[in-house]
C-alpha cells in the first residue's frame, strides 16, 4: 500500500510530507526530487523506480503530488487516489498552487490523516468530508450529530446526508459532450469518438430515488421487443437511438440493477455531481469540417488556405469557434485574409489563431494566409502539426437524448411532477484535429 505522500513545488521544495509506513524513510523525499523533479531529461513515465522504491506522480500546474511505496500496490488505484486528493483539495480551497497549499497545510494534513489510513484510501468524497473536517477547531457536536457523521462516512449511502430540505425541489441536467476527431488531409475520418458526461445538480429534499432514462439502443431495443433493427425502429418510433460503446456511473448508481434491467437508478448526492460518463463511436454528427490546403512555394514562402464548414441545422448557432493553424518555426511574417471573424498570427504559439464568435449551421467560410519563412539550413523538416479546432454547439453530437428523470421520495410528500427539471445539451470540441 501507499507508504507516503509528498507534495512539492516546482523547485522541488517539500510542501507536505506524510509518511504512512515504516519502510519509507526521509531520504525518499530527496530521492524523488533528485531523480525526477531535477532530472535533466523530460519525464518518461509517471511511475519511477528508484532503489526498489516506486514513486507515482501527478503534476498539476507547478505542483508535484507524489505517492511512494515499496510494495506491489494497485497502481491504478494509486493514480486514481492522487487525482481524487487533488479534486478534494480543489473543492476545499480552489486552485492547486504553492500559495494555496502552504496556506492550507494544516487542513491538508488533516485530510491526509482521514482519507488515507496506513496507506489504504478511505472515504474521499469531499461532500462528506466537509461535514467533519472543517478547520473551525472544535465544534460542539451533539451525540446525534456525531453518529450521523460516522454513519455517513462509513455508510452505504456515503454521499448523502439525511434530513436535507428544500422549499423548491429542482434539478438540472447538463449533457456535456466532447467531440474528438482525427481527420486526414483528404477528409478521411481516421478516428472519431464522443466522450460525454451527464452532470446533475440536484436540490431535492429527503432521500429521493431517481430513475434516469436515455435513448440508449440496448434499452430501447429491450423496450420495443426484439426483432427490430435500429433503422426500422427509427422509422417506426420516429426517435433516433444512440449506440453507447461503454458507460460508467457515479458510485451512487446501482450497477447490478443496470447490468440486469438496464435501468439507471440512484439516490443522488446533494448539489452537483457527475452522474455518468459514456463513449460513443457510431453515427457521430461532426459539427464542423476543416479543409486545409498547404502549398510550399519555394523555400521562403508558404500558402495556406483553410475552409471551415458548419454541418448542423441552420437554426442552431455554433459558438466560441477557434481554429489554430500551426506555422513553421522559422516564420518571419504572415499575411491574413479571412471572410468571417478575426485571425491573428501569434508568434509565441507558432500558429495562426482564427476566432469566430458565432456561426450558424450549414455555412461555409474561409481563411487564406501567406507565410514568409526565414531561410534556414537546419536539416530538420517541419513536422506539420495538425490544425486544431475548438467550438461549442447547443446539441449533442452523438445523438444522446434524455428521455426522463423520475424522482420518488416515499417519506416526504412531494411527487415527481412537482419537481422542476431542466435539461441542457452542450457539444464541445475535445481533440478535434485535421492533419495538413
Amino acid at each position: 500500500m501507499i507508504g507516503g505522500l509528498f507534495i512539492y513545488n516546482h523547485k522541488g521544495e517539500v510542501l507536505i510530507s506524510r509518511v504512512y509506513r515504516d519502510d519509507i524513510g526521509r531520504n525518499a523525499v530527496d530521492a524523488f526530487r533528485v531523480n525526477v523533479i531535477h532530472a535533466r531529461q523530460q519525464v518518461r513515465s509517471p511511475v519511477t523506480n528508484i532503489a526498489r522504491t516506486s514513486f507515482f506522480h501527478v503534476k498539476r500546474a507547478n505542483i508535484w503530488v507524489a505517492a511512494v511505496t515499496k510494495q506491489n500496490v494497485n497502481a491504478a488505484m494509486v493514480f486514481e487516489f492522487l487525482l481524487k486528493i487533488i479534486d478534494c483539495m480543489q473543492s476545499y480551497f480552489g486552485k492547486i498552487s504553492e500559495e494555496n497549499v502552504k496556506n492550507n497545510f494544516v487542513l491538508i494534513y488533516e485530510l491526509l490523516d482521514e482519507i488515507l489510513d496506513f496507506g489504504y484510501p478511505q472515504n474521499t468524497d469531499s461532500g462528506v468530508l466537509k461535514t467533519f473536517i472543517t478547520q473551525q477547531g472544535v465544534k460542539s457536536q451533539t451525540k446525534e450529530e456525531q453518529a450521523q457523521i460516522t454513519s455517513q462516512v462509513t455508510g452505504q449511502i456515503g454521499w448523502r446526508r439525511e434530513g436535507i430540505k428544500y422549499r423548491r425541489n429542482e434539478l438540472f441536467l447538463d449533457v456535456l459532450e466532447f467531440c474528438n476527431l482525427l481527420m486526414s488531409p483528404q477528409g478521411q475520418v481516421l478516428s472519431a469518438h464522443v466522450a460525454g458526461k451527464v452532470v446533475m445538480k440536484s436540490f431535492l429534499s429527503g432521500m429521493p430515488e431517481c430513475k434516469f432514462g436515455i435513448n440508449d439502443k440496448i434499452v430501447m431495443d429491450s423496450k420495443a421487443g426484439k426483432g427490430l433493427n435500429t433503422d426500422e425502429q427509427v422509422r417506426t418510433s420516429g426517435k433516433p437511438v444512440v449506440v453507447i460503446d461503454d458507460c460508467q456511473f457515479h458510485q451512487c448508481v446501482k450497477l447490478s440493477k443496470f447490468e440486469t434491467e438496464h435501468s439507471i437508478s440512484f439516490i443522488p448526492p446533494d448539489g452537483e455531481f457527475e452522474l455518468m460518463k459514456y463513449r460513443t463511436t457510431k453515427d457521430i454528427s461532426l459539427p464542423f469540417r476543416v479543409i486545409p490546403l498547404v502549398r510550399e512555394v519555394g523555400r521562403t514562402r508558404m500558402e495556406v488556405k483553410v475552409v471551415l464548414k458548419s454541418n448542423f441545422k441552420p437554426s442552431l448557432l455554433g459558438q466560441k469557434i477557434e481554429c489554430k493553424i500551426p506555422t513553421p518555426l522559422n516564420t518571419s511574417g504572415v499575411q491574413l485574409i479571412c471572410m468571417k471573424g478575426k485571425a491573428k498570427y501569434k508568434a509565441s504559439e507558432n500558429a495562426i489563431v482564427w476566432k469566430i464568435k458565432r456561426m450558424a449551421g450549414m455555412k461555409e467560410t474561409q481563411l487564406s494566409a501567406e507565410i514568409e519563412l526565414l531561410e534556414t539550413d537546419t536539416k530538420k523538416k517541419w513536422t506539420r502539426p495538425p490544425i486544431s479546432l475548438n467550438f461549442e454547439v447547443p446539441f449533442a453530437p452523438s445523438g444522446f437524448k434524455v428521455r426522463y428523470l423520475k424522482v420518488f421520495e416515499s417519506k416526504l410528500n412531494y411527487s415527481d411532477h412537482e419537481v422542476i427539471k431542466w435539461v441542457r445539451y452542450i457539444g464541445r470540441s475535445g481533440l478535434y484535429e485535421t492533419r495538413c
Partner: protein
Amino acid sequence: MTDAKYFTTTKKGEIFELKSELNSDKKEKKREAVKKVIASMTVGKDVSALFPDVVNCMQTDNLELKKLVYLYLMNYAKSQPDMAIMAVNTFVKDCEDPNPLIRALAVRTMGCIRVDKITEYLCEPLRKCLKDEDPYVRKTAAVCVAKLYDINAQLVEDQGFLEQLKDLLSDSNPMVVANAVAALSEINDSSPSGVPLVEMNAPTINKLLTALNECTEWGQIFILDSLSNYNPKDEREAQSICERITPRLAHANAAVVLSAVKVLMKYMEMINDTEFVTVLTRKLAPPLVTLLSSEPEVQYVALRNINLIVQKRPDILKHEMKVFFVKYNDPIYVKLEKLDIMIRLASQANIAQVLSELKEYATEVDVDFVRKAVRAIGRCAIKVEQSAERCVATLLDLIQTKVNYVVQEAIVVIKDIFRKYPNKYESIISTLCENLDTLDEPEARASMIWIIGEYAERIDNADELLESFLEGFADENSQVQLQLLTAIVKLFLKRPADTQELVQQVLSLATQDSDNPDLRDRGYIYWRLLSTDPAAAKEVVLAEKPLISEETDLLEPTLLDELICHIASLASVYHKPPSAFVEGRAGLRKALPARGEGGVASSSVETTSAHPSVIPSHDTLIGDLLSMDLNPVVQTAAQPASGFGGGHVDLLGGGLDALLDVGGGGGMSQAAPPPGGGGLLGDIFGLGGGDQSGATVMPKVLWLPAVKGKGLEISGTFSRRNGQIYMDMTFTNRAMQTMSGFAVQFNKNSFGLLPAQPLQVPAPLTPNQSCEASLPLNTTGPVQKMDPLNNLQVAVKNNVDVLYYACLVPMHVYFVEDGQMDKRVFLQTWKDIPTQNEVQYTLTNMSHSSDSVVQKMQQNNVFTIAKRNVEGQDMLYQSLKLTNGVWVLVEIKIPPGGSVYTLSIKSVTVDVAAGVYQAYENILRS
C-alpha cells in the same frame, strides 16, 4: 496573515522561542506554535528537541490541535521512545471518549507509533474498538490490526486479533468489511511461510460479493483484489463470481475496472464453457477502451495492462485498433505504449491504416518515439506478409531522409526483413551500402555487417567494405566484432580466392588479440573447421537459417500468466514479477488456475510425477547428444538436406553462431517430405491393417509438460505396426507464439532405437493447436544400457529451444515377428538356460481364458509353442525374440477360474525379464 508564513521562519534561536510559545497559557498562541513546529518538520528541520513540550499540548479539547500533536508524535515517537510513554495515558483515555471520531483518531494514531512499550498498551483499547458500536471506529480498528501485525506479528496472533478481524468480514457495515479484507490480505501476503494465515472460503466470498455492491470505490478495489487471490473450487463457482463482478466494469474509477478485469481474466482460465467466455470477452473490450479517455497517468497504467491482456487474449481488442492511434498531445509515455499495442494488433485487415499512421509518427520530434515507429514498420513487414513490400518502400523513403537515427533504425529492421523473406528484397542492398559511414550505433553496424556477409556474393566490393570495418576492430563493440568475424568467414567460404588474407587477419585478431572469450572461442572453432574440413565449414557457417518468428518481444508464457494475476498492480506496470522490485518477503508466486476438470489434471500430474527420477541432468544429455552428433555411424544423417541433418548442424550451430539464431533456432522448417510417404501414411495403414489391429498400444502419457517445454507439450506412446516401431506423439502448443522447426534426437539407449526418418510435424504449429506425429523408428543406433532397460532419453528441438525428456518404451514393441521357436529348440533352450536365469512373477486380477491369452500375446509377437494341462492348471509355453536377437522363453500357469497367473521368464540375458513381465502385464490388461 496566512499559514504560509510558517514556512519562512529561519531565525536563530527559533527552537527556544517555540519552546516558550508551546508552554504559553494562551490557547491561540499554543496552536500557532504547534503549527510552526509541523511546518518545520515538513521542510525537514529537526524539531525533536521540542518533544516534551509538544506532548504537553496533547490534552486538549481542540480536535485540530490534537491532530497536529498526533502528527508530531507519529514522526518522532520512535526517536524518543521513553518520552513517548507520556502520551499513552491520553491515548487510552481517548479510546474511551464518547465521541466516535476521537475514539477512532486515538486508535488510528496509536497504531502508527512504533514503540514497543506503547504497543503493549494498545492491545486492550484495540480489542474494544474492534467491537465498538460505531462502524467508523470498527473500520479504523480493522486497519489498526494490520499496523500492529507489521510491528509485532506474534502479538497479533497470540491476542486473537486475527479471529476478531475475520469476524469483521461478516460486519453489517460494508466499509468495515472492506477494511477488514484489506488488512487480512496484507497479513496473508506478509506471512513468513507464504501460507495464508486466514483462508478464504465460499461463504466468506459470498459476504464479500454482497459488500461489493455497497461500499466505497476504494473498498471495492480491496475486495476485488482479494477475490483475485481466491481460487474457486469449481467451474460453476467461478462462473457465478464472474457474473456478479461484471457490473463493476461500468464503474467510473479505473482501478475498480482494472481490478475487476483481473479477477475475470483469472477465472476465465477455469471456465470451459466457450460461450460464456466469449460473452465475457466481449464485455471486456469497451471498458478497456474507455480507460484510454482518462487522465494520462491512468491511461499509462491501463495501456501497460492492455499490453498484457492483448498477449494473453488477442481477440478481445482486435477490432479496436483505432483507439490506439497516437494523439499529437499525448505525453510521450502514452505514445510509446500505444505504439507497442498497435504493433501487437496489426493484422492483414488493418495494416493499411496502421502503416499510414506509422509513417506519420516517423516524422515526429521525439527520438525514442521515432525510432520505435521505424522499428514498428519493420515488424509489420514481418508480421503481415502482404504488406512487406509497402513497408520496405516506406523504410527506403525514410532512409532517404538521411536523419541519422532513422537510417540506423531502418537498417536494423531491414536485416530482420531479409531474414524473413530471403531472396526478395536484396535489390535495396546498394542503397543501404550508401549509408555505411553514418552508422555509429553497434546494433546498426552489426546489422549492416551481417547483411554484407550474408549477401557477399552479390556485393562486388564486399571485401573492401568488410576490410574497412576491420581497421578499427579492437575499438568495436563485441556484438560488432562477432558479427564481423562471422561475416568475413562467410565471405571467405563464398569467395575463397581473393579473401584468404582477410580471413587470416580476422581470425588472428579474434583469437590472439582479443580477451573476449566468446569471440576467441568462435574464432577457434571457425579456424579449426576451415583447416580440417572446409566442406563441413561451409555446411555449418552457410547453413540455411531458420525463419524468424512473427511476434517479437512477447513475454514468456509463464511470466505472462503470473502478470495476468497482477493486473492493475505495479508488477503489471513494470512487466516484472513482484519479487523483482519488492524487498524481503518471500510471498507465493501467483499462477493462473489450471484449465479443465480436476480429474484429468490430477491424473496427468500423476503420470509425470512417476517419471522425473529417470530424467537425467541437462549437461550429461547434451554431452551425449553432441558425441552422438560426431559419430559418423549415424545413418539418418546421410541426407544433410533433410530435417534431421539440419537439426544436427543446428545443434552445433546454435552454440557457434548465437547471433544467427536470434529470434528462433529451428532448423528444418523447409525439410522435404521423405520418400515413400510419411509417418502419417504409415499410421493410417497401421490402423487399417486388420491382423495388426490387435497389437497393444498403450494410451498416450504426458512426456513433456508445457511448463518444462517452454510452452510445448508432448504426450505420446509407442506402437509396433507392420514390423516397424513407431513413436506416436501429440504436440500441443501452449505458448503464445507459433512454433516451427521441429526435430528430434534420441540419446544412446539399450536397444539402439533411432528415428528412421526426420520428424514430420506440420509447421507452423499455432498457439493452442495440437498435431499428431508418428515417427518410424529402427533399432540400428548406438547401444548403451539404460536403467531401467527401456528408458529412452529424447531431445526435441523447435524454434524456441531444445527440450529434453525421458520416457519408457513399452517392451513389447521390441518383439519381432519371427519370434516363434521350434518346439524342440524351445525345450533344449529351456534346459540350457541355467535356473538362476529364471525369474518368476505373478499377474493378479486376470480374467482371461488360456485361449485368449494365446491370442492376445500372438498379436504382439509372442508365440505359444505348447499348451499343457497339469492338475487342472493350464500351462502355456511361449517364446519371443527382441530386436537385438535376444530370445525370451516364458511359462505361464493359469489356474482354472483363478485370477492369479504365474509367469516364469527365462532368458540368457536375464535383465530383460522385468521388461517382458511389464509387457505381459500391459498386453493382458489392455
